[in-house]
């Protein structure tokens, strides 16, 4: 990677405190480099090798930034509020369906440059999850700062468009988002990704969510447009008393992506649900890692991950449920099911339970297999061709993940995108 930090500093003026944070974190990154399989968390995803094979001359964005995007990329026939990020930069926001008094929205750049709100996010810069986190702290230049007041439920979902145009080619884009939901508030949030043509870039993002008492955040990540992007998305969630966090991930578009979701159930009766659909083909490499930390009593968590792997694709799910000794009456559940449909594709699964409380209910399961040939026979005996039968079974298998979505309109939207995707896919399936 080409680290032209001086130029970056000139282009992104920050206060002296942030500047010190940047320098400190840049040095940490320089020392460690990109994560490689020597690190336990990265043993199925050797990012160092992946980047040196595909993006060996990554650059920090210079100041010739552009923010054009194709308005055709915006989702139609679906009423929503929106924030548009282009190349990681905050370009516009539209909350026309909402009471603007209740919502505070700012480009993160303003918070980074000014001292006023910086204290609200200062602590997040101490997180040293891995070298990418340090790199993000050092190079973050924009993103989202969104605060929702107490007792406010959004009328319509918020879509955050993550668009990338030709400017991003060969760049490493570092951004962050901070979203906090006040007590009794409710938000449905969609992250939608789309890149221009087949540009190649690396997007390193950290999402920080804080969900106060009785609040509910439902988040849907839609990575369905097959492209040449590489990415690492780290999500940190703080859940307070009786709050709900739901996360659905449609992981199917990027060449490479690792999603890492850390849910911290800090207060009692909070819950988090992380469900994912991974549908990979060609040489795609996707990983999902979840870390569910039960830190208080009577909390609930569940994960359902359903994956289908074709061609030479590679998928990984690492799921950890951690229960501290105070987190009695924990209810934890995890299930991963994968269909590996080609000899050259692979799926890795690493479920982990670490429990220090003695009165908990926790279960996990993981299966990897092929399509059941008796089911194929059954469907073909009803006139379906082998390809139709395979498709129907794969669709059905993955549909179980989509059915976990509790918002009907969003379920319909994601279902449509999924069917588009599956209709464009060529199935070449080995029968082992």
């Amino acid at each position, binding site marked *: 990677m080409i680290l032209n930090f001086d130029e970056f500093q000139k282009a992104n003026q920050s206060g002296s405190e942030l500047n010190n944070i940047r320098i400190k974190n840049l040095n940490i990154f320089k020392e460690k480099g990109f994560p490689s399989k020597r690190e336990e968390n990265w043993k199925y995803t050797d990012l160092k090798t992946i980047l040196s094979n595909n993006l060996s001359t990554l650059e920090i964005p210079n100041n010739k930034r552009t923010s054009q995007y194709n308005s055709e990329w915006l989702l139609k026939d679906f009423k929503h509020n929106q924030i548009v990020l282009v190349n990681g930069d905050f370009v516009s926001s539209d909350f026309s369906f909402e009471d603007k008094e209740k919502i505070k929205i700012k480009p993160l750049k303003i918070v980074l440059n000014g001292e006023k709100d910086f204290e609200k996010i200062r602590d997040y810069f101490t997180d040293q999850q891995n070298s990418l986190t340090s790199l993000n702290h050092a190079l973050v230049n924009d993103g989202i700062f969104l605060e929702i007041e107490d007792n406010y439920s959004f009328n319509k979902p918020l879509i955050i468009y993550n668009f990338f145009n030709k400017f991003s080619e060969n760049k490493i884009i570092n951004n962050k988002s901070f979203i906090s939901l006040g007590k009794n508030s409710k938000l449905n949030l969609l992250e939608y990704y789309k890149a221009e043509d087949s540009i190649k870039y690396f997007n390193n993002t950290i999402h920080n969510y804080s969900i106060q008492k009785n609040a509910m955040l439902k988040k849907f990540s839609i990575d369905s447009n097959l492209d040449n992007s590489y990415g690492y998305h780290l999500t940190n969630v703080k859940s307070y008393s009786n709050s709900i966090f739901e996360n659905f991930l449609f992981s199917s578009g990027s060449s490479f992506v690792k999603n890492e979701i850390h849910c911290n159930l800090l207060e009692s009766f909070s819950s988090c649900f992380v469900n994912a659909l991974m549908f990979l083909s060609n040489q795609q490499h996707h990983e999902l890692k979840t870390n569910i930390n039960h830190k208080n009593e009577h909390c609930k968590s569940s994960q359902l991950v359903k994956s289908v792997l074709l061609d030479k694709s590679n998928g990984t799910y690492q799921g950890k449920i951690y229960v501290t000794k105070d987190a009695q009456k924990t209810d934890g559940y995890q299930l991963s099911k994968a269909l590996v449909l080609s000899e050259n594709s692979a799926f890795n699964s690493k479920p982990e339970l670490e429990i220090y409380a003695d009165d908990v209910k926790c279960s996990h399961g993981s299966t990897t297999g092929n399509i059941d040939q008796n089911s194929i*026979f059954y469907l073909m005996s009803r006139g379906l061709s082998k390809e139709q039968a395979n498709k129907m079974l794969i669709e*059905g*298998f993955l549909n179980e993940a989509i059915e976990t979505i509790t918002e009907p309109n969003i379920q319909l939207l994601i279902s449509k995108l999924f069917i588009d995707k599956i209709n464009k896919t060529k199935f070449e399936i080995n029968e082992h």
Partner: protein
Amino acid sequence: MLDIKSLSASIDGKKILNGFNLKIKPGEVHAIMGPNGSGKSTLANVLTGKNGYEIKGQVLYQGKDLLDLPIEERAQKGLFMAFQYPLEIAGVNTNNFLKTSLNTIRKARGQKEVDSLDFLKLVKTKTKNLKIDEKILSRQLNVGFSGGEKKKNEILQMTILEPKLAILDETDSGLDIDALRIVSDGVNALRSKERSFLIITHYQRLLDYIKPDFVHVLVDGKIAKTGCGELAVELEKVGYEKMGANK
């Protein structure tokens, strides 16, 4: 309709059908009875096209070689098997499955596809006639269905697809008397001069409701005895062992 000539089938070197002969004319209902392991289900599977069998002999279906046809083409040409153990297909909506199946078959026959609205009307009438709870249409195919619901679903598929030759593989086993009546009514309603049935069963009971034209006793992979409906009653009395000894 169907002409099976000295059909043999083995699996993993074990011979299951051994010189099996059977002729079914349009409109006829044939019942095949036989003890466990006599080859009844293998016959149904081989005719439907299941993989994994070593097959010898010839099967003509509507005058053409059946054994060379892929599974789906057999279905498209009007062959239907009601499964002994219908598969549970997770995530696949029953209504969508039925519609896809019907339209694929119609398309293959050069007929116009049925749109969603017309299909819904059709499927609602059929479920009503068969006294099937409409709710199964919105459920995943056979997932969590009771034994009776699964079998009724097979009959529902049969009535929607309107096959030329329907094979019922032990559709009666596991059914209570009411369900048995519904299944039989479904079959009887479809009986016509052009449509033939091959009904595989262990018990005479089903044949009280569906009166067959012929009853065959299958022992050790071939037909040991053929008769009319009376044969089933006789079998019920004397058991299969006697029939086997008779051959």
